[in-house]
């Protein structure tokens, strides 16, 4: 009961603010709504008992990436005329994309319904009975996925160097 209330609340907030994000004209407003979406998603992670991911989402996504976005938006300080904000004919492209994707996904949903047990989540054990999520997480991350982890760190390093090279002042 409580679980579903939490889910619907966060899901509603996420979808609503995501919709507002793509429709707001002001880039900062978009960023604020994206932050809201991300926080709502973090709430859903928590509801799914993915505590570590919940906090990773907040620290990395919201506290890191979004700060970067807001920073850049403030740095470029552009005042785009409001009617210039979207392509004119792009609305139809967007509609097409949305409809196409919707069709595709409804087919997927159809097949999901055909599956036995309908993909129900197993009922969670009481929180204190669960093994600590962060320890589980670490064991898998540094055990099974050690190599991908290292590759991801190299990716981040490369991205960091790339960003520095890109953003550096050319003298």
């Amino acid at each position: 009961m409580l679980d579903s209330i939490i889910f619907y609340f966060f899901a509603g907030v996420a979808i609503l603010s995501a919709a507002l994000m793509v429709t707001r004209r002001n880039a900062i407003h978009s960023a604020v709504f994206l932050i809201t979406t991300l926080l709502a998603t973090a709430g859903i992670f928590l509801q799914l008992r993915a505590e570590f991911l919940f906090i990773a989402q907040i620290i990395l996504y919201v506290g890191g990436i979004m700060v970067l976005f807001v920073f850049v938006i403030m740095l470029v300080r552009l005042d785009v005329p409001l009617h210039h904000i979207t392509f004119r004919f792009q609305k139809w492209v967007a509609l097409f994309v949305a409809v196409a994707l919707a069709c595709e996904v409804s087919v997927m949903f159809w097949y999901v319904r055909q599956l036995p047990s309908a993909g129900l989540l197993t009922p969670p054990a009481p929180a204190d009975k669960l093994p600590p999520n962060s320890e589980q997480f670490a064991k898998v991350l540094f055990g099974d996925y050690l190599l991908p982890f290292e590759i991801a760190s190299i990716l981040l390093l490369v991205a960091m160097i790339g960003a520095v090279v890109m953003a550096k002042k050319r003298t």
Partner: protein
Amino acid sequence: MSPALHAIISFLETWWVQLVSGVLIVAVVPLIAGYVVLVERKLMADMQARLGPMRVGPHGLLQPIADAVKLLIKEDIIPDSADKVIFWLAPVVSMTAALVSMGAIAFGPWFQVAKDINIGILFVLGVSSLGLFGIVLGGWASNSHYSLIGALRSTAQLVSYETAAGLAIISGLLLAGTLQIRSIVDAQQHYGVWFIFLAPVAFFIYLVASIAETNRAPFDLPEAESELVAGYMTEYSGFRWALYFLGEYANMIVVAAVATTLFLGGWLRPFPNVRWLNWLDVLPALFTAAVGAYCGYRAGKQPVRVQTLFMWAVAALCFLAALILAATLFVPPLQAAKPGLLGAFWFLLKVSGYLYVFMWLRFTLPRYRFDQLMHLGWYLLIPLAIVNVFFVAVAMMLETEFGWNRWLALIITSVFTLLAAAFLMHLHDKRTAAASAAASETSDSYAG
């Protein structure tokens, strides 16, 4: 009974402690923050050879309340060209982030809102870092150049110093082996010493980084009064401004509580496992009694009768607290309350001590310049924190894998860390000297 009602009741049955403590935090923290401001002003006055607030209440004891009332009834100004919604939202974000992150902090073994959250310290860090958005958005929404520069400064500053603080915390977490706040304190009890003695470098990195994170002098660049008027708060007034202010002080309490939990032994008394120091348990009662006695002594010297009465009331409260603390020690039926109350006392004492260091530094040091701040963060604190994490990990490995004596391993690695610190300091000094020389050259080249 309808199922919905039943669900609500069962919900309340399980969660009422959390709810009540949550409400308590929201209600009490602003008051405490107000009194932290008063203490700060009094300390500042003391260090600057003056008296500080003396008018409202005896020794200015009611000053925070007067300030709050003043701010509440002030005209609420929103600049015409400001982005109204975000202007309204920003201080709320700032305040909320600080208050929510307080939910996971354990003020003593009893007082904690979210009890079994196993990412405890990360939660505090993550949520309090959201307060940054309050600052950035407020600075942007004000539509003023001073605010914008303040916001840009604070973004860069907070992101940099959060990295250093996070790495410093990791050293502590390596020693504790857990993220849960209670377990961290238990680990320190298990070791028998506070982690500040095991990872002193990490503590000092955290101290510096936490000052920078809370925008306090000497790192108060985002609101540097003499440069940016008030930085991101320039256009704010009245109650919105008060929200920022409360958020800042609540944030100070949060970082102090994190440092206390992680490095200063949380609610443990000094040397928690040494038996013959058990008499320290009497200290809280004696301390509050002493405060009460001082208030009583001052009461006689107040010029106005109301103020005398007020001081007596404060003294009586202190004596009452002392009595309760003493009772938990000596009256058997009340001894169950002993760990909770004493723990809270020690915790708050350590938090106050940490805050005192904040204030002391603020009154003593000039302000860093922005490039110097960045140099300090990126060239000194972050490399040092990385080295420190590495050496603490090596010490843990030496102990667990090679069976070294724990103390030996920690002492050796601490020495190595300190050596690295000295080396980095040396590099830092050389680099800043070179940088400032270069800066002077640039200014020369502009002259032509």
